[in-house]
């Protein structure tokens, strides 16, 4: 039983009732009789509650207030809904315009959120660092560590709990229905410990399972059964059967035991990873080819480590630098000048995409601002149109608060509607954004419509609606009464007019920035497309063949196999010539070998010798691709295993090694396959841009395939007709030689070239899309403003015309106003362009951010559009009939 409560101050009840009454007056106040009854009842309820004690009284009072608020709000909302339904044009325009803008921004936010903001899906991700080798004097700041150094780091560091490294290898998976390319990641000990992720199914590798495992490409197993852990994606494509764990799959000509499956969001190094296998660096670099163990001067691996608990990144970096200095002292030939650099993994992953994403987010946010400004413009016009109605209601005794409250309810409804439209559109656009975005944006697969994205959409919808609908309507609902009730007088004051002008100027300014951005990107893209790749990309069909290492173990077998495949392809009608090479220009398939070389007689020198890309090619490769031979000859069938070792070099290498003198007949030492060997230069070919138009040519050395019969080759076919039409036949024809050997990735060279421009095209299209939208928005903004001004100044114009102004001078008045807007907007936009030019610089190709042609074209386009938008209002002004306009 409760103790008797203390007597309640009677004044308290009165005060509470007074508060209640005030709220009642605020929120309802419709029927005085009903109001009095509500008031009386509330008082009685409070009185009877007071007898039951203080807490009962408080509960009752709260319940009464809640009741009042719900009813009052529902009334406001109902009234607001009615007024919005009565103006469906306005409501729909607002919801669609703002919804589009919000959806676009939210889509980008979802991308940025997943890629840049969201923490990595690993335990304590802030402790993960990426390790790079860095040589400041040589300006090689972020090089993937070499196997020898990584091995040293892993064994001797005192900064990390675990350190792992990996290398990705293109492999071929063979299933029942043909073969497919997969990416295998060979990882060193500690890989799953560094990332601290448990598998979805099965298990990862035990420590002793790493020992004695050579690389995937070696075709060896170290005497043990090959094992791997599948990525979620590859597991899905294999049928997503949990029973696959423990079974084997057939990759690179061998059966591999599947130990486990990783979760879907585990994507190291990226979503392309198909499986992980254990790798023992020391085992991979053993034997006579590597007398000093794993090499220290081929820097190509990737390494990540988990910093020890309670150790700052700074301290870890210092410890690693000490270790690197010690290694450099022990191995001066390979490591002099080389230190180590730690980059937090979170930063590392987004380094490449951050600029693009932020650029695009900026563009989208600019669009949203435009849209909100236009909606504000609409809302002001609507308020002006309703000013008389409001004023009359006000004069008839509707409370000012009631009008404000209804406006708030209207804003809230618009915001809700906008949010709904935005969320629906975002859900639609997220799917297509993922499909269109460049595939190398890291963590793109994590993009989804989750709670934070939906909350963002709602918050943004609210913000946009407040800017577009809320603020413009709030001002001066009472100040306009007097003037509104005066017949025909302008209802909008100086202030509103100035705000509208500022809005339109801002719209034009933002559009200028977007247009300049789109123009620059388009010009840059056009330049990229015009870049001469160094060979003839038309009518080239490419296909990749990855034979089983078990079936073709020896050099003779491989040479013979490829000779037969190329011959069979030559027989096809429409084929002009055929050749094969380890790495094709523009192709991401196949691995380059970076190997040191020097000119005979000069020796490797005290410093690390320069490196070149080493590729194996069959006779006729240069003729087939159309890479011109500048000097000397092409490989021939005579360049076989028994004949003298020969190479063909490109112009870059000739320049670097012989200062541009013709090197044909000279001898080059190539440190390849363990021991340096002399090879005679028999030809020089023109430079080609192997990695796409943006890439600069690099020194290259070509070896006859017969003298080093590499197993996995890219076959290139010069056709006389459309190469795409030949794709199916060519693949079938290649399979006739040995139906068991996988032939895949059949495509055309033009497609490959196109793919290298994917990012540039994406950026260009995106910004162009928004620039177009911005232009339309700015044009509507200008139109709305001028149309409004003309309507407002109707009487003034009529007076001018009555005292002799001509139609054309009136029209000129309107056009001049639009031109002023455009010029001021261009100046504002120019400032914006200067602001973002730094950001744009990094993604432009062969063009400066201040490209005069782009700037002038933008200005002309903008003026033209603004003039077009002012045409209708100007004509309307010119056609005003002074007599009818001045009649009231």
């Amino acid at each position, binding site marked *: 039983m409760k103790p008797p409560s203390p007597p309640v101050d009677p004044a308290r009840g009165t005060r509470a009732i007074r508060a209640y009454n005030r709220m*009642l007056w605020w929120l*309802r106040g419709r029927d005085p*009789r*009903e109001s*009095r*009854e*509500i008031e*009386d*009842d*509330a008082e*009685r*309820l409070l009185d009877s509650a007071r007898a039951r004690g203080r807490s009962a009284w408080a509960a009752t009072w709260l*319940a*009464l207030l*809640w*009741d*009042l608020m*719900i*009813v*009052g709000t529902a009334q406001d909302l109902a009234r607001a809904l009615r007024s919005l339904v009565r103006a469906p044009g306005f409501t729909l325009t607002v919801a669609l315009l703002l919804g589009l803008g919000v959806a676009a921004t939210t889509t980008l936010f979802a991308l940025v959120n997943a890629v840049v903001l969201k923490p990595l899906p690993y335990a304590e991700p802030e402790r993960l660092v990426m390790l790079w080798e860095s040589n400041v004097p040589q300006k090689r700041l972020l090089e993937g560590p070499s196997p020898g150094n990584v091995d040293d780091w892993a064994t001797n560091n005192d900064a990390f709990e675990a350190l792992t490294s990996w290398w990705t290898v293109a492999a071929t998976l063979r299933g029942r229905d043909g073969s497919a390319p997969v990416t295998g990641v060979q990882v060193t000990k500690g890989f799953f410990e560094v990332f601290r992720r448990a598998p979805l199914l099965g298990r990862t590798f035990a420590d002793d399972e790493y020992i004695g495992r050579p690389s995937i490409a070696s075709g060896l197993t170290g005497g043990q059964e090959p094992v791997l852990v599948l990525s979620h994606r590859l597991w899905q494509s294999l049928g997503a059967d949990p029973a696959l764990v423990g079974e084997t799959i057939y990759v690179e000509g061998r059966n591999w035991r599947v130990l486990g499956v990783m979760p879907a969001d585990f994507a190291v190094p990226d979503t392309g990873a198909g499986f992980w296998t254990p790798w023992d660096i020391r085992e991979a670099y053993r034997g006579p080819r590597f007398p000093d163990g794993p090499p220290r001067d081929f820097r190509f691996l990737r390494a990540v480590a988990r910093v020890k608990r309670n150790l700052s990144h700074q301290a870890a970096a210092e410890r690693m630098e000490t270790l690197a200095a010690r290694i450099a002292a022990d191995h001066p030939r390979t490591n002099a000048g080389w230190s180590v650099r730690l980059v937090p993994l979170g930063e590392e992953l987004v380094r490449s995409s951050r600029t693009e994403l932020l650029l695009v987010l900026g563009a989208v946010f600019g669009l949203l601002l435009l849209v909100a400004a236009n909606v504000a413009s609409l809302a002001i016009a609507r308020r002006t149109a309703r000013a008389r109605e409001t004023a009359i209601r006000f004069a008839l005794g509707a409370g000012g608060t009631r009008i404000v409250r209804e406006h708030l309810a209207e804003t809230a409804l618009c915001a809700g509607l906008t949010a709904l439209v935005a969320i629906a559109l975002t859900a639609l656009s997220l799917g297509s954004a993922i499909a269109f975005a460049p595939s190398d944006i890291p963590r793109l697969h994590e993009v989804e419509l989750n709670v934070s994205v939906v909350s963002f959409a709602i918050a943004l919808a609210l913000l946009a609606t407040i800017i577009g609908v809320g603020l413009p309507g709030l001002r001066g609902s009472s100040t306009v009464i007097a003037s509104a009730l005066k017949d025909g007088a302008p209802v909008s004051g100086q202030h509103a007019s100035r705000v509208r002008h500022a809005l339109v100027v801002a719209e034009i300014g933002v559009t200028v920035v977007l247009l300049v951005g789109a123009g620059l990107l388009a010009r840059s893209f056009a330049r990229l497309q015009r870049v001469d790749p160094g060979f003839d990309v038309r009518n080239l069909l490419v296909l990749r063949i990855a034979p089983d290492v078990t079936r073709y173990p020896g050099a003779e077998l491989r040479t013979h196999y490829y000779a037969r495949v190329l011959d069979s392809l030559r027989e096809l009608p429409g084929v002009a010539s055929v050749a094969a090479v380890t790495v094709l220009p523009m192709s991401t398939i196949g691995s380059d070998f970076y190997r040191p070389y020097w000119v005979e007689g000069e020796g490797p020198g005290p410093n690390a010798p320069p490196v070149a890309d080493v590729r194996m090619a069959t006779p006729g490769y240069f003729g087939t691709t159309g890479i011109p031979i500048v000097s000397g000859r092409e490989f021939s069938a005579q360049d076989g295993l028994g004949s003298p070792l020969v190479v063909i070099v490109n112009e870059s290498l000739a320049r670097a090694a012989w200062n541009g003198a013709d090197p044909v007949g000279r001898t080059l030492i190539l440190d390849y396959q363990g021991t340096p060997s002399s090879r005679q230069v028999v030809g020089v070919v023109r430079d080609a841009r192997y990695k796409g138009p943006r890439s600069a040519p690099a020194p290259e050395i070509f070896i006859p395939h017969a003298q080093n019969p590499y197993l996995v080759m890219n076959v290139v076919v010069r056709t006389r007709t459309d190469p795409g039409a030949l794709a199916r036949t060519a693949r079938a024809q290649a399979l006739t030689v040995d139906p068991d050997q996988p032939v895949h990735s059949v495509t055309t060279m033009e497609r490959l070239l196109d793919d290298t421009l994917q990012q540039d095209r994406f950026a260009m299209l995106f910004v162009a899309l928004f620039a177009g939208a911005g232009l339309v928005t700015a044009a509507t903004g200008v139109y709305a403003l001028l149309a409004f001004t003309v309507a407002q100044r109707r009487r003034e114009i009529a007076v001018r015309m009555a005292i002799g102004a001509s139609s054309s001078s009136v029209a000129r008045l309107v056009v001049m106003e639009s031109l002023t807007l455009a010029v001021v907007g261009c100046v504002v936009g120019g400032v914006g362009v200067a602001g973002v030019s730094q950001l744009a610089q990094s993604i432009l190709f062969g063009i400066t951010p201040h490209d005069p042609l782009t700037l002038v074209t933008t200005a002309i386009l903008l003026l033209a559009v603004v003039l077009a938008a002012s045409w209708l209002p100007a004509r309307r002004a010119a056609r005003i009939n002074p007599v009818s306009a001045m009649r009231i």
Partner: protein
Amino acid sequence: MSDRPRSVDHLLPLKPKVLHTLLALADGPRHGYGIMQEVAVRSDGQVRLWPAAMYGTLRELEELDWIAETDQRPSDDDERRRYFALTALGKRMLSSEVRRLEAIVSHARGSRALRKPERA
């Protein structure tokens, strides 16, 4: 025009607050405060109506012609208050709803759902 009253079943079920309001008026006219009290007493405090919402309901019911303001005032008259009584239509609504609920309850009794466990 048909003599037979049209079926009102398509308006059922009634919202709980409407049902409670109609029920409170079933025994005779009451004023607003009376309705609130009656509902609270009958439902043993489980259902409470609050004034702002309740007068809104009363207005709606009046517009529907289910209740009407009445001059029949009890002896302890409070002259400032409006008294409400069920109209014929209101009575029909109430009895249709009660019949509907009865059917549900008897169905539930017949099924196993409401049988009390042996050891209750």
